[in-house]
């Protein structure tokens, strides 16, 4: 049993204990650490003003990731290395280029942008082979219009540097035992605990011991409960560094529940290009570096992006309780709004995505107001298993259309057994009105959601491979929207 977290800040070890375990990294930096360079612009992971780099052991090296300090709980740093804008000094090449290219105006977004750029220059997670606009989609700047910042990114080559000393230091910080932080709020007398199991078996035990504890993976949801809704979480079970296995086989892809979007992106893209593009459009780099696919499923949100796609692909979820496991089709995990098929003491362990058959037609589409880094108004997953020109079976699921991610039974029926045609897609589009009565909210009206969802099916006629020989499978959309 230990009672202090340990992490490296600019190569120096910090040992911290006796603090509120839901203190955010940003609060710590701007408070006790006195590092005022990291800014708060939103406290919800959307603006990037608080971007810092967190380094973790990865194979023989250190992988740095840009994360949002505003929704990163301080204990999540345990065993890791941290860099803030102060760590760069002031003469880092990206800093010099930002000055030279006039990349700052008011300067408030700038430290976060500099950290994203520095991360990119170091080959941080999610930046290699990524378009600079994608690397920066999570850094809002209200002043510049981004031109000089993108130019600063392009000017700096990506050169991951080996740092054997840091590797050695991080190895020292590895835990072989569970970490438990205890703290009592002096103002309210409420006791709080942060539990970090050291492996999955330990997690399974801890989950049984404390079934009421709130599981936290990347905290890109849970962090907001604290910063935005001021919720008090008495007990937290942090699984962020566990269940990170990725297994790719000819049958499909198995993702441990802790695999983050950033790591899941490439293998999911190999399942289908659309799935890769969907993951690329979840949040932005910082969110994808923290958030876990398993958590995106586990949280049961009706607007989570992966569930509709994975339901369409017939994914299977595995839950674990102690040493017992049970598997269920992903769609049956979502019972109703706010309610999932998860029992006391259980946790999501992995999700398996079967590899599509070569003759399947697959389309996964996300509709948002802003193309990048926005939550879906509507998200569609479609898999048509074809027998020649006939649709043998259809799996069509939507997010944003109901209280849960949900299959469109009537629309599926309109397609199944029919030849794929403009008429059958039109019938399916119209059948959506039987399947869904979507909500109106700030992301879209009920009518828009229904019309747009239907239009995705209508558009599919033009998009699918070889349609009348008019268009390639990825029509001009690719050039038009995906840069």
């Amino acid at each position, binding site marked *: 049993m230990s009672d202090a977290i340990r992490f490296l800040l600019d190569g120096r070890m910090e040992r911290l204990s006796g603090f509120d375990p839901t203190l955010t990294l940003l609060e710590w930096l701007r408070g006790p650490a006195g590092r005022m360079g990291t800014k708060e612009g939103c406290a919800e992971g*959307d603006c990037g003003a608080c971007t810092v780099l967190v380094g973790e052991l990865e194979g023989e090296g250190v992988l740095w990731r840009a994360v949002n300090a505003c929704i990163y709980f301080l204990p999540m740093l345990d065993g890791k290395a941290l860099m803030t804008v102060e760590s760069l000094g002031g003469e880092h090449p990206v800093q010099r280029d930002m000055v030279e290219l006039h990349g700052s105006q*008011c300067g408030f977004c700038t430290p976060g942008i500099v950290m994203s750029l520095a991360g990119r220059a170091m080959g941080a997670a999610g930046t290699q082979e990524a378009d600079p606009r994608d690397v920066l989609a999570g850094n*809002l700047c209200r002043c510049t219009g981004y031109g000089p910042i*993108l130019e600063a990114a392009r000017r700096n080559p990506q050169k991951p540097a080996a740092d054997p000393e840091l590797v050695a230091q991080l190895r020292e910080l590895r835990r072989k035992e569970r970490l438990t932080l205890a703290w009592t709020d002096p103002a309210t007398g409420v006791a709080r605990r942060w539990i970090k199991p050291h492996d999955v078996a330990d997690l399974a035990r801890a989950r049984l011991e404390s079934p009421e504890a709130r599981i936290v993976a990347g905290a890109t949801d849970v962090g907001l409960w604290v910063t935005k809704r001021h919720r008090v979480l008495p007990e937290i079970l942090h699984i962020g560094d566990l269940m990170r296995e990725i297994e790719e086989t000819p049958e499909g892809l198995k993702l441990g529940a802790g695999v983050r979007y950033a790591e899941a992106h490439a293998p999911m893209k190999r399942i289908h290009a659309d799935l890769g593009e969907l993951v690329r459009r979840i949040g932005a780099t910082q969110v994808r570096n923290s958030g876990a696919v398993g958590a995106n499923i586990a949280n049961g949100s009706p607007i989570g992006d992966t569930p509709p796609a994975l339901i369409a692909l017939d994914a299977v979820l595995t839950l674990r309780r102690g040493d017992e496991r049970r598997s269920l089709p992903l769609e049956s995990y979502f019972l109703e709004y706010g309610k999932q098929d998860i029992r006391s003491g259980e946790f999501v362990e992995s999700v398996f995505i079967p590899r599509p058959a070569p003759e399947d037609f697959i389309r996964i589409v996300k509709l948002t*107001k802003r193309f990048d880094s*926005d939550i879906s108004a509507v998200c569609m997953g479609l898999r048509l298993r074809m027998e020649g020109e006939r649709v043998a079976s259809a799996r069509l699921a939507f997010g944003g259309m109901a209280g849960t991610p949900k299959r469109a039974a009537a629309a599926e029926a309109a397609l199944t057994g029919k030849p794929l045609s403009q008429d059958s897609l039109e019938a399916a589009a119209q059948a959506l009105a039987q399947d869904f009565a979507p909500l109106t909210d700030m992301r879209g009206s009920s009518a*828009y959601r229904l019309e*747009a969802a239907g239009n*995705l099916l209508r558009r599919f006629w033009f998009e699918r491979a070889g349609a009348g020989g008019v268009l390639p499978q990825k029509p001009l959309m690719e050039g*038009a929207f995906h840069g």
Partner: protein
Amino acid sequence: MADSAPVSPPASSTRVNAPIPHESAKLHVSGRALYADDVAEPRNLLHLAFGKSTLAHAKIKSVDLSAVRAAPGVVGVYTAADIPGANNVAPFAGDDRILAEDEVIFLGQPIFLVAAESATAARKAALLGKIEYEPLPAYVTIAEARAAGSFIEASQIMRRGDVSRLESAPRRVSGRFEMGGQDHFYLEGQIAVATPMEQGGMHILSSTQHPSEVQHLVAHALHVNSADVVIELRRMGGGFGGKETQPALFAAAAALVAAKTGRPAKYRADRDEDMEITGKRHEFEIAYEAGVDETGRLLALKMDLASRCGCSTDLSPAINDRALFHADNCYFLENVELISHRFKTHTVSNTAFRGFGGPQGMLAIERVMDDIALHLGLDPLAVRKANFYGPPGSGRDVTQYQMPVTDFVADRIVEDLRRRADYESRRAAVEVFNREHPYLKRGISLTPVKFGISFTTTHLNQAGALVHVYADGSVHLNHGGTEMGQGLNTKVAQITADVFGLGLESIRVTSTRTDKVPNTSATAASSGADMNGWAAWNGAETIRLRLAEVMAKKAGVPPEEAVFEGGRVRAGDLDLPFPELCRLAYLARTQLSAAGFYATPKIHYDRATHSGRPFLYFCYGAAVSEVVLDTFTGEFKTLRTDLIHDVGRSLNPAIDLGQVEGAFVQGVGWLTIEELVYDAKGRLTTHAPSTYKIPCASDRPEILNMELWRGGENREPTIHRSKAVGEPPFMLGISVFSALTHAVASATGAACATLEAPATPERILKALAAGRGEAGPREGA
């Protein structure tokens, strides 16, 4: 074509006109630039939060704050009754309360104020107030206010000529449309830190564009003199107009607690609160009726501009006036009647935002141009050109408010741009693409900008500066303007350095403080560099002349012969380093400190008749944008924008290009993805970046070619013949909306414009449906 990075025109050798980096750039990139929240906190600092109304309009029946007082960490709870002076933070009308008294007039209005040992404790406690309300009818939308006859002031009419010419016009075009508001979304939220000083004095760090107004309002609230209150501001993390009148609320709250408790107090609004309780750009509803000839030239125009002002007056009268001043944009409106309704609603009071009503007026007339072109089947650019102002003396050279347009260059800029961007052949290619593609449609449009510079309230056009030269030759520069990222301090430092022939490193730019330069105007209306630049120049020049006297005496030549250059001063045979001259001047008991002042000449305006010369000059620009939209989903992308903008003789081309690009992107955001959604009860449901989407890096056009106009020079004697730059390029964003209008019309075949702003995917689908309705049933997709 490769994406073009902003290119800087060749650096000139002088300090002014050179693309020098922002004075704080190195601090920005290293995280060492201090904003109000970064200044070391005193140990006994209190943190504040408002308890806020949950209804848009109601009588307050009772307020029970016992649970708030009992909450952990709470030190004090205050209501309107605790304010020693005026319970007011309005810029002039006296109708903005600090804390509500017996009525609330918008959802989110502060009712009580909590001071606690931590921000979290204050925010949590603020949720515990028990308020009993008696609901009153709430008008949320313009339509509701219109139906109820709820106005902030009398409707204004600006007219000229004979609008009855409409009746006889060969072609008539009429329409109506809405445009949404916009949140400033400065990255640094509202903040104030008040520290009590001895003898009832108060020092406040405030993130404000208008330190003097904050000073005066705080003094009134505390019932002390203005001289007892000092406002200080080193830099803001963005302002855009949102920190012109809005910061006074937070400063007054902090000052109230500091005065009551004797402890320093900080109010830092979090993002949601900032968006919920501070004003925004005005939404407008436009209705128009135009009479035109066969070439699309306007013979007469009647236009209604109705705006949502929110729950109080704030700056809405001037903002709506500016909409009228810009409802001509670049076009001569011979016979015109503009009617402006300023509706009072039970929503947060709308306020200044880059362009200050100008963008709304300009979008209205640009929409009229597009609609005329669609009705007549003409190229919209031809219609625009047919309506341009003519040369002086042409009879088509006076605005609808009787100001002669003597510096019109939009025609020349448009011509340059048209050629450079290949407008005609690209428009033809767009038509071909649209015929061939089953569901993607492109659109292209070229729109011009003419924007008037000066505060339309004449007395605001004054500025002051304070310059000290120390005996070691270093220069301390202070002026009444505020730095919000626009590079004002850099430009004023360049101007000052130039006077003394010094490098920028010798100039120390300092915080704006009301105890150094008094009675300043807001840094707004794009006038910051024009006015403070001249004021600083005047101050510096006074000192330079004194130094020249000293030099001349030593060298035995007339003072005019003293040359300040390269850090040295030469006169006759004498050649001294600048610091050496300063030391000599000091020993000779010369005053090396001077205040500078500037009042904009020539301007006057009579609001009763809506006529005069409200502006010293106009800024011009034009942009051509090409978009592609998906008619199934309503998604769109800007493929390419080319723009040329006139900044006169640029004081700093790098900073000016930065302003142009940032303003353009912000303008596109306003008209496309930035959507403020209020529910029927008046609650803003888009109050954070998770739901309110400003442009991110990938929203920048795929190709963006920008140029400062080479022919630019100010005809008026502005500082170094430069032109203001903050606001005008914002309206270049209209080109994207206009291109979308083209794409939508091309998809539906409708002979009218149907798109409303912001053009979210949902509104684009709506516009397509409306267009199809107009055009009759459509074949295919």
